[in-house]
């Protein structure tokens, strides 16, 4: 990647790395500050929605044997009979003290388990985004450079297949091929880096399609511009023209899509985690919803929301890194 130009215009010179100006810091602080009301709103919405869905956690936990007495005891134990504002205040008070409450289903604290699950999902999502970027950007690049050839058509068809294949299907096909037939990789679970390969590829393929299409159209636009012709006229090797000049300029919209995809991958992880028995947040959330485990659902959604807020911030910051013109003044 080309070195960044000197400090952005108008920004005071300081001991910072040229690309992290005070204005940039102000932007980051501002975005973080607006994230707080967003998260507060999310917490209120989730709190209300989980209670609006029909179904009573006490009755579900009590199971088929439930007598009224057992259900009432459970409701009292989990303070489900308190007025909603009281329940919300207690919940919010806990959150501000770093306590997401105890799971109704397992009576264990939500936060430690959620942290472990979140790290698992993050691991999966990061691996998937690497796969998605490698395949998506690679395929988009190749099909733009070899425009209207058989390679381009093949890459476009593959991209379309990636976008439109449901994960629960592609996941099972990957297991069938690589675990059952070829016996190369485990069919699911965790324990070694090998366990990560299939879920990451399955989830990554889903994101690769969108990235490929975005890269291809971005590249086609850039490749037709004057500076590319100049670079070629200078006699630069085609590889340098494409990678160093064209690709870098085509990347901005791709990064937007990448950030957007990351949020989608966190969502897509719900299916991937089920198919590959990956103990991440997605499965935690599904189990929590079907149990009406209010504290667990609230905690999981809040963490998801915080992750999306953070990723959006990272995307905004990376624009500045990629293109000095969009740096905050």
């Amino acid at each position, binding site marked *: 990647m080309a070195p960044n130009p000197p400090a952005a215009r108008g920004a005071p010179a300081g001991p910072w790395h040229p690309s992290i100006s005070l204005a940039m810091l102000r932007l980051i602080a501002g975005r973080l500050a607006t994230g707080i009301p967003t998260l507060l709103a999310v917490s209120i919405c989730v709190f209300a929605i989980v209670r609006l869905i029909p*179904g009573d956690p006490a009755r579900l936990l009590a199971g088929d044997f439930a007598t009224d007495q057992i259900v009432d005891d459970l409701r009292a134990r989990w303070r489900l009979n308190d007025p909603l504002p009281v329940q919300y205040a207690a919940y919010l008070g806990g959150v501000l003290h770093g306590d997401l409450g105890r799971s109704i289903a397992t009576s264990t604290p939500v936060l430690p388990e959620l942290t472990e699950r979140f790290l698992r999902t993050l691991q999966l999502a990061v691996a998937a985004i690497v796969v998605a970027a490698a395949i998506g950007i690679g395929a988009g690049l190749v099909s733009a450079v070899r425009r209207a050839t058989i390679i381009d058509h093949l890459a476009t068809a593959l991209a379309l297949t990636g976008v439109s294949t449901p994960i629960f299907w592609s996941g099972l096909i990957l297991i069938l091929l690589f675990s059952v037939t070829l016996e190369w990789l*485990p069919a699911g679970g965790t324990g070694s880096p090998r366990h990560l390969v299939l879920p990451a590829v399955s989830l990554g393929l889903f994101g690769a399609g969108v990235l490929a299409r975005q890269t291809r159209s971005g590249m086609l636009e850039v490749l037709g511009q004057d500076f590319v012709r100049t670079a070629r006229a200078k006699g630069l090797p085609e590889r340098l023209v494409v990678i160093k000049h064209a690709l870098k300029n085509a990347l901005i919209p791709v990064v937007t899509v990448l950030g957007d995809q990351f949020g989608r991958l966190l969502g897509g992880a719900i299916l991937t985690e089920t198919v590959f028995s990956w103990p991440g947040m997605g499965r935690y959330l599904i189990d929590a919803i079907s149990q*009406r485990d209010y504290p667990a659902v609230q905690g999981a959604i809040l963490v998801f929301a915080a992750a999306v807020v953070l990723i959006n911030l990272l995307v905004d910051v990376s624009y500045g890194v990629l293109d000095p013109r969009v740096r905050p003044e």
Partner: protein
Amino acid sequence: MRWLVVALAAVMVVAVVGTAPASKDTLVIGMPTDVPIFDTHKATGLHNGSILNQVSEPLVRLTTEGKIVPWLVESWEQSKDGKTWTLHTRKGIKFTDGTPFNAEALRFNLERFRRLSIGKATLAMVKTMEVAGEHDLKITTEAPFAPFINSLGYHWIVVYSPTQIQKVGDDNLHTAPVGTGPFKFVHHKRGQEVRLEANDQYWGGKPKLRAIVSRPYPDQGARMLALESGDVDLIFHVPPQEAARLAKISALAVSTPPSARVIWIYLNTQRDPFKDKRVRQAIYLAIDREAIVKNIFAGTAKALHSPGPVGSYGYTDKYDTLGYNPERAKQLLKDSGLSNVTFTLHHSPGRYLLSGQVVEAIQGYLKQVGVTMRVTDLEWGALSQLTAQPVEKNQAQAVLFGWRSVNGDIDSAIQDFGSAFWRPKGNNGSFWKREEYDRLLTFEQGTLDGKKRLEALYRMQEILMDEMPALWLYGEPQIWAAKRTLKGVEWNPLESIQSLHAAYFED
């Protein structure tokens, strides 16, 4: 492109470089869910007993033939007035922390079960418990209760070391449970795996397997592929059609031990059109249950000819005088004077095996006799809330529901048709009441006369088969698949493995 090739090659290398083949003395089980909490007194989900009860053992065992056999409780006596039971605990048993198992440990655990378990109603009839000797526990009940010993077979009634519970506290037992079983707890990584190791001091002798690992595979397709790929050795909840395919693979074997789960459709007898007994009977007559079992369950389920699970104590099929007879169904509907009978069935997709296909088949059968059944699919939590409403608010006309006998005695499956069990107090969603039935129920639970009790159980089934407060459909199968070399697994009818003590891999 070169970096892409290199990256792909690297992935392949990582992929191919060895996994150690699973040792033949470690059994890996693929379950539909993770054990929610490793404490049997707080457990939910019958199949989780397969793992939990390798560490903690029951007082008596329920066999797949529906019989009760002594286990940690070796023998028992009932007093003349029928209200006191003396349980004698097996001698010479120790928990794996060295604490002796005796009457006091038993009392301590029964109290804990009665305090914490979702199934605590199973022992609701108990009034007092008194240690009468090192190995004798006297239990008195409010009134004589004939199926008492059977109730002790309910598989959440197990014992843990009282020393350990006092040491770590009620809330933390799941982090280090200590039982008397053939295996000891090693760890439970939530959502990932449970690991147990052999208890070589087990009172029944050294187990053959050295370790057991249980992993959750919530997706049924992935679970089957995990077995086929060799990642796991044994899986539960195989769909019937897939069972036939897996059975054809030479390295695998499929087992379908009897199951105590029965599938019924509750008919709300307080609402139209089911106030009229003839309509209820007509619907029963219109459904070909044998065809459902054969075509949807590939013969693995069992059509019910009584409410109870086939094989439970007291079960009889001799009162199923109606059977499948669409012509008679049409006649009964005509006699009832109702035209265009229409009703709504509430159903929770995915809760019971293949229930969606069953519901469609029933819709088809009813259409043939001119009855329209609409289906409302609800997620289980929503359905539970809807059906728990008391009679005056309960809008459900018909609900597909799974029930079972938890103790091998048909009493536990049909007692809820007593009028004291109307929802929401019990599970009688039919809101049906017959004085004779209530009388018989009280009698059979209290009598000391085994013969008269059996007669009462028969008469109760006769009444239910005539009155049809619910449609008795079929007994759901429990289907397991394993590597063919795995031998010696012992099942129970509550959809779980009873014991892996004798399990081993054949060479």
